[in-house]
């Protein structure tokens, strides 16, 4: 499967993606990729603005062990069940609601997510070009959080865009 990775354009071309450990990394600490070039491009224009340019890298991810919560019905319901199970236990035993990132980090650190290569997930895009019909966002914004770097093949600079 082909995926895209957006980064600030700096002095060097990357030969591997940047590992994301930020607090807003909703699927936990991982390598993040976009399913579509549109979303990769929009992310660059909107959030990679410091140097006035952004780079989009293209790569193949070769794996049968991605938890596909977007297109696979069985995987989706498995995912929902595990997130709700974890949230329930955390709330019951700590009195505090965990974030999605915390649940995913917990599964990773407790060697659960080490049995999968990554998670494909979706939300709704803010990209105005996706609002082609009135009052409804029909298009998924899909991201891959990859935990296993070994599955990255042919990571190359695709193009440089201007903000």
């Amino acid at each position, binding site marked *: 499967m082909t995926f895209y990775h957006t980064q600030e354009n700096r002095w060097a071309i990357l030969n591997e993606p940047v590992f994301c450990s930020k607090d807003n990394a909703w699927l936990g600490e991982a390598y993040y990729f976009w399913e579509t070039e549109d979303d990769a491009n929009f992310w660059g224009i909107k959030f990679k603005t410091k140097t006035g340019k952004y780079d989009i890298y293209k790569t193949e991810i070769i794996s049968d062990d991605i938890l596909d919560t977007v297109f696979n019905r069985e*995987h989706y319901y498995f995912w929902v069940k595990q997130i709700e199970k974890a949230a329930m236990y955390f709330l019951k035993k700590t009195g505090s609601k965990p974030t999605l990132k915390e649940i995913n980090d917990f599964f990773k650190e407790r060697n*659960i997510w080490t049995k999968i290569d990554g998670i494909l997930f979706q939300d709704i895009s803010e990209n105005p070009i996706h609002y082609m019909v009135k009052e409804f966002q029909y298009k998924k914004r899909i991201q891959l959080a990859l935990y296993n770097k070994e599955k990255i093949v042919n990571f190359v600079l695709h193009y440089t865009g201007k903000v």
Partner: protein
Amino acid sequence: MIDLENLDKEIDKLFEKETSDSLIKWLLNKRFGNINILLGNGNFVNMSTQRQAVFSNKNQAVFSEKDNYSENNPITRNAA
């Protein structure tokens, strides 16, 4: 292929093993860094079971009572 059934069982086992202490510690470390450096590795103690300090004031503040309000309070007084 991911073995969902097996993974589901592993997650069940994981939460059966985790205690309140282990989950609280994990969550605090995640949110505030390695707090064990400051607090040590002992068990968490519920503070409500601890003896009250000798000099602590037992009177509780009642913020809803009107007697804290003054017509001459500079915050509520109209500008001249």
